[in-house]
């Protein structure tokens, strides 16, 4: 097993985080990799909130949150309810978990939360939009604790070399979870 940046094609777990009562979960992205996966789960502190993602080109010092910084589309099905399709050409964040209304955000009970696989591609290339695609399973906040799938795909609306990613809830802290950052070199 080698240490440090990958000299050849590889998939490597870079780090694992176990957030507890934090407002945001940040990872810096090493430009030596071509793509990154965030694999894990989170449980929000506040019931019925969306899971958001933001990018930054300043090493995590100033995550982009302008009104037209991100474009994305998403879809999902939570129990008997359609969660999409949803599409936005400009937003302050990428909403990973499409939200069809009251009760269909992520649930905050001990057994609820959201599980996901997020891929961040082309982040280091300043000439290309950083692209994000994510899919996962949600346990909703509604009385039936509806479960189901969601898929979201989008990008930063400016071509820039992004080197940090942030996961956060629509409101309130991340109560708990476990997320691994995996680097892909190809």
């Amino acid at each position, binding site marked *: 097993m080698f240490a440090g940046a990958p000299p050849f094609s590889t998939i490597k777990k870079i780090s*694992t985080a176990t957030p507890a009562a934090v407002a945001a979960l*940040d990872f810096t992205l090493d430009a030596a990799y071509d793509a990154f996966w965030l694999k894990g789960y989170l449980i929000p502190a506040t019931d019925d909130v969306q899971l958001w993602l933001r990018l930054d080109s300043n090493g995590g010092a100033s995550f982009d949150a302008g009104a037209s910084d991100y474009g994305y589309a998403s879809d999902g099905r939570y129990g008997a309810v359609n969660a999409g399709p949803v599409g936005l050409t400009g937003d302050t964040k990428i909403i990973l978990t499409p939200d069809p209304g*009251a009760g269909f955000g992520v649930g905050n009970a001990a057994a609820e939360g959201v599980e996901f696989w997020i891929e961040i591609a082309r982040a280091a290339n300043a000439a290309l939009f950083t692209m994000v695609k994510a899919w996962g399973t949600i346990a909703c906040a509604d009385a039936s604790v509806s479960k189901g799938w969601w898929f979201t795909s989008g990008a930063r609306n400016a071509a820039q070399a992004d080197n940090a990613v942030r996961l956060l809830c629509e409101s309130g802290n991340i109560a708990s979870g476990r997320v691994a950052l995996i680097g892909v070199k190809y």
Partner: protein
Amino acid sequence: MARVKLVNGAAIAFTPAEDAARDAEEAAYAAAPIVAPAKSEAEILRAALVRKGIVTAAELDAEKTR
């Protein structure tokens, strides 16, 4: 209490600018909250018991058929 971010596994306090931006987002959420449908007292009690680790969900389920 100051907000904290977990950066590559290390807990770091929000900067004043991050805190102010998050205050605005939290205020927007509070102004137009998405309120979950009311849960029954039994659902609330069940969630609280499991969250506090007093019993597991499986143990509560088992009680239904005892």
